[in-house]
């Protein structure tokens, strides 16, 4: 460990468990969660001084994790899948009900959008900024994901959806 990094260590000790939980919800398994958190913390440690003074380190790590999970993570995921072992082998030791299982079938970006919206409780605008996509894309990703999971969107969301989907109503929005 580099000298002068005591604060960084403190941050990791204090926030590590929460970040791992977030990683687990994002990825769906403990191994990927640990990798994702460690990789994001490595990045954070590189820019610790800047982040500590200007932004919230926690928000920085969480943003890094969401982005990273969508991007280079894909490669790793494929390695896992090519082994073609059925679900239920040793990595699948946790089951939190059907909904949790079905989340694993979503495309990665849709899952991340749902996690940011329903676990992190962020607005679509904030999600759009984090992922570097438009607000419309956030909404459509969420819409498709909820549909696949058979989750009924709340009134506000369905109103937005119907407005977006019928061009004639666009003025009203």
């Amino acid at each position, binding site marked *: 460990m580099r000298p002068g990094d005591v604060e960084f260590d403190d941050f990791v000790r204090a926030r590590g468990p929460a970040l791992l*939980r977030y990683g687990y*919800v994002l990825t769906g398994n403990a191994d990927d969660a640990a990798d994702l958190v460690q990789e994001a913390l490595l990045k954070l440690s590189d820019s610790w001084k800047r982040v500590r003074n200007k932004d919230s380190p926690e928000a920085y790590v969480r943003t890094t994790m969401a982005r990273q999970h969508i991007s280079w993570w894909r490669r790793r995921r494929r390695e896992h899948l090519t082994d073609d072992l059925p679900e239920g082998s*040793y990595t699948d030791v946790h089951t939190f009900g059907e*909904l949790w299982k079905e989340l694993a079938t979503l495309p990665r970006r849709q899952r991340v959008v749902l996690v940011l919206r*329903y676990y992190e409780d962020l607005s679509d605008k904030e999600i759009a900024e984090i992922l570097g996509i438009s607000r419309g894309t956030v909404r459509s990703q969420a819409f498709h994901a909820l549909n696949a999971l058979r989750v009924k969107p709340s009134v506000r969301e369905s109103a937005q959806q119907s407005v977006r989907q019928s061009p004639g109503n666009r003025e009203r929005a």
Partner: protein
Amino acid sequence: MRSEDELIGALRTAGEHAPDGGGDLLAGVALRRRRRTRRRVRVLAAAAAVVVLSVGIRGAVLSGGGGGDMATTPAPEPPVPRSAPVEELWPGAVFTLPVEAPDGARRVPMTGISPTEVLVLARMPGKEGRGRLEVYDSAAKKSRLVAELPGSRQFVIPSLAADGRNVVWQVSAGKSVREIWTAPLAGGKARLVTELTGSRSDLDAISVNGDQVIWSERSGGVWRVPVAGGAPDRITATDGLHLLRWPWASDAPAGPDLDDRNQTVLVDLTLITSHEVDSRPGAKGVRCGPHWCLGRGAGGSFLQRINGSDLRDIDGVFGHPKPLSMAPLLNRFVPLKHGVHDVATGSTATIKARTLALGAAGEPSTILYWIKKQGSWEVLNLAAVPSAQ
């Protein structure tokens, strides 16, 4: 349709149940930094002009590095104690199981029930609700039907257990509703034993023993119900205990899992007697069966007796990114990344496969399986390994 609240609930619950491991984060970050430094060194080394410099740095980095890194020269996997390929060491214990059944159902071996018989889950692709349990007889090379699974319910994978007479399993019947079903191993109709709802529905282990089904909850506590049906009854003095394999229970889950929790007692539920586990300081993920414990220390994985004696190191224990926490199977076998170590004889059966899987059962499974040829599983039935004597 489900509500958004259910989705929020599912995400929160999963988050709360996420395996811990926070203590390793700083070490993990440090390891990554070293790895990255080495990768940079490799880039430097590509330019001939800086060869001398790179050798100097690499020497310093390597001496501080951990195993399994992507180093300049690929670091080999930690050496696996070499004995013999599994087919040579235990020829009677390995057999081939075609993945596809004659009617197109896909089979997955779950656990062994005798030296020649393995319970198999067979499901029609695309119709995961429809399926059946079979017993595959490795001597006769034949499958026979045990029971059709109830169609409208979703089978919960790590939930199957059997004794000599019956098989039991869990199905999910909606949010926080689990049902325990049973069927005679000889073959017959599946029958509902009991329904568990709410906080009672989160099970981490299940066993069947004669006329009783026994299980534990993820939050601890052991329950039982007659196979014939009836109201579940909590076994006294089992607060915080998790079922291993009847009649044994532990204060840590049976695993396999990535949890660092150490088991500190082994309880015989028939007599409610307990044995304290004596682990060395700093040990993590120590889990014990009636004879042996497996755990992780600073120097790697180790085996020991419950009282702490007979300590020995063991390399290459199954699991990623760290060895899984679990007791040796059948008091004797430790799954490795590339084989199985037999504690009783000290020998190791090596298995050549890209990925090895442990059967997923409601109590520690007694089989391992892997793919050798496309379209068929190779299955190692640990119950068929000759005794050490």
